[in-house]
């Protein structure tokens, strides 16, 4: 139980001023601008938008600056801000088949229509520190090919679909999808609730769990069927207009995981799917999400559920880093009254045990007394 404490105003105020000074750092160094963060720490911005669950590059950059680069703190700031805005409604589902692709790879098919587009990727870098970046570098300009890439690239999963080798995604949209921001999760959770939870879940937590399935804690045998990243249009249908309008574009990363499935009494052997989708360029997260979406379908597919990554209550209840960091970090707040009561209890228990010992052996009890 937490009992509130009072006072400490002056110290708290001074602590916050000190925090602001530390945030600014050495004043001989120019202050960071939001434009610099947006442009040069763009993947931090992407992660904060994805887990902060609000697509706004400016606000994410501000949150990163305010949080001194602490990404989970920045996510918390963005989550808190989003509660101050009214919700106008929902968009039409984004169509990732129409994505203006900047990166698109498949680890399952070498030759696929539209080709493999590496885009901007760390994948084939040597991970050696680049000391040319110590000083301001002459930024290179990427070359342009003579032709654009294909305007619409088919998804790899659709290619398998043509042969009937992969399960079909059924478009079941008779109801409004469950919204974890408006309703508390109930178990068993629907796939849409799981996907929303994972989309805003902590990248590190999702990554570790996805990794655990690869190491044998609930095998999923994943292949990265396709990863694509780029811009998609966002459409809404305003009530007064009655027709869809595009309100802007957002960058998203999509991952289609393809998994082995032996089949069951009713379903022939085929591949199954796991789906990952995140705001921004967030491959590690999208892939982890794809693996976990599939592992959380174990029960539905009649597989044994015996690993943490297959247990939806375990995964979904612990994926939110705002909740997790809040609950862990609240332990820093004064628990004086709480602890006092525990002290009383422990002392009483020790006294009781000493007394009972005393009855058995009077010399021992003297030693215990001396030790206290």
């Amino acid at each position, binding site marked *: 139980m937490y009992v509130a404490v009072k006072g400490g105003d002056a110290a708290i105020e001074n602590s916050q001023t000190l925090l602001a000074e530390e945030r600014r750092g050495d004043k001989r160094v120019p202050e960071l601008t939001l434009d610099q963060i947006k442009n040069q720490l763009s993947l931090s911005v992407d992660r904060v938008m994805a887990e902060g669950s609000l697509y706004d590059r400016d606000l994410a950059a501000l949150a990163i600056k305010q949080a001194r680069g602490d990404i989970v703190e920045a996510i918390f700031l963005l989550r808190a801000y989003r509660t101050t805005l009214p919700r106008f409604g929902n968009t039409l589902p984004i169509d990732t088949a129409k994505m203006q692709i900047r990166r698109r790879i498949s680890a399952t098919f070498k030759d696929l229509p539209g080709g493999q587009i590496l885009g901007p990727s760390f994948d084939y870098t040597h991970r050696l520190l680049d000391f040319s970046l110590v000083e301001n570098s002459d930024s290179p300009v990427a070359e342009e090919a003579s032709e654009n890439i294909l305007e619409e690239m088919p998804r790899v999963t659709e290619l398998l679909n043509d042969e009937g080798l992969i399960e079909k995604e059924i478009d079941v949209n008779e109801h409004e999808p469950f919204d974890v921001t408006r309703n508390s999760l109930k178990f068993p959770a629907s796939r849409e609730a799981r996907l929303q939870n994972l989309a805003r879940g902590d990248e590190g937590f999702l990554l570790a769990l996805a990794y655990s399935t690869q190491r044998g804690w609930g095998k999923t045998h994943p292949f990265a069927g396709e990863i694509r990243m780029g811009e998609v249009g966002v459409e809404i249908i305003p009530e007064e207009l009655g027709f869809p309008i595009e309100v802007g574009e957002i960058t998203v990363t999509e991952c289609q995981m393809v998994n082995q499935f032996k089949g069951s009494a009713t379903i022939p052997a085929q591949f199954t799917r796991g789906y990952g989708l995140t*705001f921004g360029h967030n491959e590690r997260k999208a892939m982890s999400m794809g693996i976990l979406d599939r592992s959380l379908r174990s029960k539905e597919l009649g597989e044994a559920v015996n690993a943490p990554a297959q247990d939806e209550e375990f995964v979904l209840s612990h994926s939110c880093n705002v909740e997790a960091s809040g609950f862990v970090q609240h332990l820093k707040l004064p628990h004086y009254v709480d602890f006092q009561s525990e002290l009383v209890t422990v002392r009483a228990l020790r006294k009781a045990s000493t007394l009972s010992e005393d009855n058995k052996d009077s010399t021992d009890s003297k030693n215990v007394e001396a030790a206290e």
Partner: protein
Amino acid sequence: MKETKKLARTNRQKWMSVLAKADTELLNTLWCDLQDKPSWTNIRAPETGMVMVRGKAGGVGTNFNVGEMPLTRTTIRLDNGISGVAYVRGRSALKAEQSAVLDAMLQDDRYATATFTNIIKPLKNAIKKQKASASKKAAKTKVEFFTMARGK
């Protein structure tokens, strides 16, 4: 806001999309350079809220909520009664108001041609240029992987 079948886009849908996707600074520059502008009144003052962005499982299956996105909306009416609407991503009241007035002007015979030439066309060209550059840079990273049989 329910789903409907995709139909051919009307001109109004097209220009609304261009205005929404336009770079805020470029739009503001073009707006300031536009000589002949009517007067207007705000029917609904610019208001910033959010929309929940939806995706589909596997890209094709059941709908789910991905996360929210700030959106600013406004409605204006020109001196002659034509109204203009804007819903634009982000939190810029200025962009929303300019877009709504331009939406009305594009429906108004007095201004339609000049507005299209001086605003929509350059915005569209800027978007097209930016997209083509991104596409060509991506195309330059197209890779051919070879599988090699090893041993016997």
